[in-house]
């Protein structure tokens, strides 16, 4: 059942480019949707339009089957958690959580009951009499969450709620959020610029760039089957290697001292692009390295720097034309800086994109349509 629906939603300011353009997302009840993208991609604006904090320039937003375009935030049955938590500094945590209920005119006893119950669920009962200034970052985050939960809204909106936390707390809280969502199954829209959060939290991930939705899909599909170069490059660490080159007959890609033959099943789709400029995309973990002697036919590159990461390591390579590549290899791989290595591409995992930042993925079967 569709719970939140964005139809052709746009946001533009007079005399400026569109901040959000033609966004269409249908969110199911209980679904956890993550909007991800670089800063300025329009993800926060989209969330704020759902919240009612920004006017909707065009299109409609429905919550629970009701168009909410002209409803004030309080009537949209939503609650929001802000990046800086936005707790009222002059109120105790209890008062912070009770504020919305009080404005709604609920009875004191009812409010106290609800606040205590929520505080108990997320383990902040002992903080209720304190003011936000007396709390640590993690505690404030919890109170902000509690303030949203106590209203039992139809939809939770999160605007980068974890980015003010230190790395360890962020991971912990992420897991906590996932647990809570599993328990209460409240529809959630979550904005982040952190791809890791997007991948771990989202039932589906919406990748946005320059005000447009690039792809809407479950995390692994986004990772393995990116619809365009932007999505491919945005997700994954280190980011995907992109190599400019040409597609020759027989699915042979060549460019920047790198060449590989693409798998046969893709040739049909690539046919019309033979002879044109394309961009090869290969993730760092999809290149194997070998001694050049063992693979005289493979392209080679020189190892510049090795960054050991424990169980894996990143190798920074330069091809014969001076082009730079990154390869992630098992830590056991015995290579040292200055050596020449042969590059063995896992061609089944390689993608070809049209030129340009948002170039479409040519290797993908056309079921998923690139929006760009």
């Amino acid at each position: 059942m569709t719970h939140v629906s964005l139809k052709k939603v746009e946001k533009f300011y007079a005399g400026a480019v569109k901040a959000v353009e033609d966004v269409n997302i249908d969110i199911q009840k209980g679904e956890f949707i993550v909007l991800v993208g670089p800063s300025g991609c329009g993800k926060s604006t989209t969330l704020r339009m759902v919240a009612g904090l920004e006017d909707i320039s065009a299109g409609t937003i429905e919550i629970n089957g009701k168009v909410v375009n002209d409803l004030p935030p309080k009537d949209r049955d939503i609650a929001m958690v802000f990046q800086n938590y936005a707790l009222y500094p002059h109120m105790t945590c209890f008062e912070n959580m009770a504020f919305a209920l009080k404005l709604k005119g609920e009875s004191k006893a009812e409010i106290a009951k609800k606040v205590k119950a929520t505080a108990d669920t997320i383990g902040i009962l002992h903080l209720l009499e304190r003011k936000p200034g007396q709390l640590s970052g993690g505690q404030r985050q919890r109170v902000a969450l509690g303030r949203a939960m106590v209203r039992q809204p139809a939809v939770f909106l999160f605007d980068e709620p974890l980015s003010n936390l230190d790395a360890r707390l962020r991971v912990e809280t992420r897991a906590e959020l996932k647990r809570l969502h599993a328990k209460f199954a409240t529809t959630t829209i979550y904005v982040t610029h952190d791809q890791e959060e997007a991948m771990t939290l989202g039932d589906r991930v919406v990748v946005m760039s320059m005000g447009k939705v690039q792809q809407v899909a479950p995390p692994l599909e986004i990772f393995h089957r990116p619809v365009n170069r932007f999505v491919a490059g945005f997700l994954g660490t280190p980011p995907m290697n992109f190599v400019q080159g040409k597609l020759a007959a027989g699915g042979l890609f060549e460019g920047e001292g790198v060449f590989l033959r693409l798998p046969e099943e893709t040739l049909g789709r690539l046919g019309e692009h033979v002879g044109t400029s394309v961009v090869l995309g290969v993730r760092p973990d999809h290149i194997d390295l070998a001694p050049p002697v063992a693979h005289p036919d493979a392209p080679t590159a020189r190892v510049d720097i090795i960054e050991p990461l424990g169980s894996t390591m990143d190798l920074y390579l330069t091809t014969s034309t001076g082009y730079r590549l990154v390869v992630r290899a098992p830590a056991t791989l015995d290579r040292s800086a200055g050596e020449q290595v042969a590059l063995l591409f896992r061609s089944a995992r390689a993608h070809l994109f049209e030129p340009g930042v948002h170039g479409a993925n040519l290797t993908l079967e056309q079921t998923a349509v690139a929006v760009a």
Partner: protein
Amino acid sequence: MSTQNDLKNGLIFSSPWLIGSVVFLGYPLAAALYYSFTDYSVLLPPVFVGVENYIELFQDELAYKSLYNTVVFAFGSVVLSLFTSLVLALLLNNQIRGITLYRTVFFLPSLMPMVASSILWMWMYSGEGGIINTALAAVGIDGPAWLADPQWAKSAIIIMAAWGAGHAMVIFLAGLQDVPTSLYEAAIIDGAGFWQRLFHVTLPTISPVIFFNLLMGFIGGFQVFTQAFVMTGGSGAPEQSTLFYVLQLYNVGFNDLRMGYACAMAWVLFIIIFCLTMVVMRLSKRFVSYDR
């Protein structure tokens, strides 16, 4: 519930000030301009007389005298007060012990109601038994008659103004405390001595504050009134040496009931202060470093 252009709420919240600024600022300013072209006594409706008031004003020796007095006072008090407050602030900005106590001592005089401090200084400047001249005599100086001497009356009021320099000092001190320590440390490493640090680090860095105090000092100095009114009962004695511009304006308007003429004086004052502000702002653009 528009959050991008909420004209309704904008106007609701601004309305008191919109009304207030029109009624208590805009209208009086415009009315003053109109009255300045009339013969107006408040008791009777104004009678239009063209530029007569201005013609008379430009030939009015008393007005010139009062303007001269005011300019002397404004420059004298700005220079002396600015210097005093800056020196005090520089001395206090040394992370010394007892800074709060010193600051309180220097600041207190600026808090005193002008009427009270004027009476106090009259008493201190007074005749032969005045405490100031007694103190001067103790170190072998034969003090002047101060407020009774046309040569010295303005200086007396300027000195009194410097006594109230604590307000500017607090502003300077805040500016000085904003100068990053790393800047001084860098200067020391570069081999700058005390004076070089003062002229190449401290003063340039607090230049916006200096200009702010300068501007406020001038605007305030041109409106000097209460001291002279209290000390001379409004006459500007002796020999009109403390007849300041606003004092003369008050006398013309509220004693002689020549409100039209007073308004002409008022508008000339407004233009002077306006031009002065523009000049100071210009200068500040050239000399002040705002990039921090």
